């Protein structure tokens, strides 16, 4: 067994562990994906009919004459002017550019459970006071018309302070409303826009929409304008024309750092180029294959088509080998050799003479046939 070829069994034994690990990882990934996807299939989705979806609310709004559209990109938000309400159910998922679009929008904004960062961007005077207050039935306790009309609702979650605060508890208000855009927003964000911050999404989802005055509050907040943009953000690349070149992105000192790297490369070359002593040379003996001269002569015969000469050499060699078998001296002439071979093999003497002393073959095919015939004859003589 000198072969280095590996059979399939060996390949499998060597590769099964990585393959199994890979399969396990894949399986785990698929399981996690399937299970996590199943927990909230359509949370706050205006098309989802399950408990946490919001299809009921969307249907109610449409019945009331409000156009409900789903928006996914910053561009759609920017195109919305006054007379539109933008609902941001997942403020944490907004990309910076999308948040910027919401902030600069002239439309009214309803945002669900935003963190401090989003609140500061959209409604600067508002602050987050409690991160997870109790979700409970609360009284409006303010003079916001929508709240007053809706009465008691289920709210809670994040609590805020600042602006007009409704449904308060000890930690803060579960609903706050600010009128007017942030001070540093562009001028086209009209001064009349309202930004409403909800502490929890309970008044919007299918399962709890029918409780207390939830539906009334939701309809009042979202149905105020003839159009509602339901903002479910998708991943966006940078807008056209906003790309920055690589040199703008890296630190300003990079040419100098590169120069230092060049120095390092130079030192690397110096390190590797320095040998630990010179190469040791050694005179090697000449190697000539001994049979090369014979092989060369064979090629020469073939190239010149020396079939006649080759045949004579082969015949001579056969005769030289047959003579001692027949009990003849090396110098024996044709007649005794032919007679001896004929006697031993029973072949006709003329045929033997033609084989051993006959005319030269005309071509290579004849030469090959002659060589085989000589072999056969010699075998016969030796066997007899």
């Amino acid at each position, binding site marked *: 067994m000198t072969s280095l070829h590996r059979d399939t069994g060996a390949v499998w034994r060597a590769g099964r562990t990585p393959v199994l690990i890979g399969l396990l990882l894949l399986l785990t990934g698929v399981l996690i994906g399937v299970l996590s996807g199943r927990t909230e299939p359509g949370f706050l989705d205006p098309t989802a009919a399950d408990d946490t979806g919001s299809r009921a609310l969307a249907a109610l709004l449409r019945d009331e004459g409000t156009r409900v559209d789903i928006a996914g990109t910053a561009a759609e938000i920017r195109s919305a002017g006054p007379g539109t309400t933008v609902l941001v159910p997942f403020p944490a998922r907004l990309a910076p550019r999308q948040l910027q679009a919401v902030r600069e929008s002239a439309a009214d904004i309803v945002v669900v459970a935003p963190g401090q960062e989003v609140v500061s961007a959209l409604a600067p005077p508002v602050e987050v006071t409690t991160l997870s207050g109790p979700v409970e039935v609360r009284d409006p306790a303010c003079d916001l018309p929508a709240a007053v009309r809706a009465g008691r609702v289920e709210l809670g979650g994040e609590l805020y302070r600042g602006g007009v605060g409704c449904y308060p508890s000890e930690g803060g208000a579960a609903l706050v409303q600010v009128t007017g855009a942030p001070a540093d927003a562009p001028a086209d964000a009209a001064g009349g826009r309202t930004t409403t911050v909800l502490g929890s999404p309970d008044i919007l989802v299918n399962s709890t929409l029918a409780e207390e005055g939830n539906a009334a509050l939701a309809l009042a907040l979202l149905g105020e304008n003839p159009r509602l943009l339901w903002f479910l953000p998708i991943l966006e690349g940078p807008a056209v024309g906003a790309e920055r070149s690589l040199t703008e992105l890296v*630190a*300003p*000192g*990079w*040419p*100098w*750092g*590169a*120069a*230092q*790297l060049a*120095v*390092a*490369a130079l*030192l*690397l070359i*110096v*390190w590797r180029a*320095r040998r*630990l*002593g*010179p190469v*040791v*040379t*050694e005179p*090697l*003996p*000449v*190697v*000539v*294959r*001994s*049979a090369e*001269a*014979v*092989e060369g*002569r*064979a*090629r020469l*015969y*073939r190239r010149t088509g*020396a079939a006649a*000469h*080759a*045949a004579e*050499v*082969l015949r*001579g*060699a056969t005769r*030289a080998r047959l003579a001692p078998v027949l009990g003849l001296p090396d110098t024996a002439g044709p007649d005794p050799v032919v007679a001896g071979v004929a006697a031993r093999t029973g072949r006709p003497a003329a045929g033997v003479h033609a084989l051993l002393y006959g005319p030269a073959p005309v071509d*290579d095919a004849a*030469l*090959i046939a002659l*060589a*085989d015939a000589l*072999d056969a004859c010699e075998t016969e003589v030796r066997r007899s």
Partner: protein
Amino acid sequence: MALTGRTALLAALGALVVGLALPGWSGLLVVEGALALGVVLDLALAASVRGLRLERSGDTSVRLGREATVHLVVHNRGPRALRGILRDAWPPSAAPDPVRHTLAVPSGERRRLTATLRPTRRGDRRASRVTIRSVGPLGLAGRQGSHDVGWTVRALPPFTSRKHLPSRLARLRELDGRTAMLVRGQGTEFDSLREYVRGDDVRSIDWRASARASDVMVRTWRPERDRHLLLVLDTGRTSAGRVGDAPRLDTAMDAALLLGALASRAGDRVDLLAYDRAVRASVTGAREPLPALVNAMAPLEPELVETDVRGMVSAVLARASRRSLVVLFTGLDAAAVEEGLLPGLPSLLKRHRVLVASVADPRVAEMAAARGDTVAVYEAAAAERARTERRTVARLLDRRGVTVVDAPPEQLAPAVADTYLALKAAGLL
């Protein structure tokens, strides 16, 4: 002086300093200055290589295919500790392991480094220089220098035909009358008389001695002793040809060693001559022939010159004053034999017995048997032609009274030994 990888690594890390903290010429100057300072410090504080004392010890000869162990002692006589790497360079065919050693020699102490050599070719392997890189305490740079610590390991011929020796020695004892079976030959010498035991050859009964004694006495014989053998290796052009795995010369050496070992056990004197256009090696009158032969053969290499056969014959005549068996290990080249050997033969044969041993090429036999297509048939013709020429030359020599042994490589040594035993049994030495 030599830098280390650490210098390059620090310079690369310096790119962060220059790029982020100090962009500009000042940053470059600071980093390069710090590096240069470290390098200079290291060079100043590294142990001196020149002041080291190195010594070698260990094996000086090894049979080809075995391992030789060579030690190198590094003595640090300087005031500073030596840290770094050492390269003990040998020619590639000496196959040293390891080549590089990690060194740590405190001041005033010595360390012994050991390397094993497994030569891949026969001959003398001379150690090349020992190079030492002594690295400073920071590991940024070091001093580098070399020492020439001479040492030579001689790779001896492998003598693979040793395996044939026991059977040939048994045959020799058979000749020697020490076994019950007595071999009587024309040239055997009378040894002693002893009482007849059953199984003895009745022809060897000495009737005259039996008459004097009260018992039947037989004569015992022993083979000739104290004969001279001169082994002549042809190291010329033809000996370079590779037959099978080894050059012809190596095969010839193997056969010569077996013959030498056998002959020295048989009580004969064995001398050696290696010749092409000049004497390459010579052993004369050695008390222990085998080690002397092995040692003399070890550095021989084939020379790419046509052998001067006349010169060889006169060298043989000059060496062999007494009647000897001259064993010529040479090729059976028609031209060389006819022009060189034949004219010199008469003077050689007048006083000596000559045996010509030649390596036959199995490849030629293989080609001669090839059949089937054009290429094969022409190869067969060329091979037959070569064999015919060899046979003619062998017959020519045979007719002059020269014994010719022409055998493929693996059979040459036993064939030569057998021929020697046959000659000895026949008392032809």
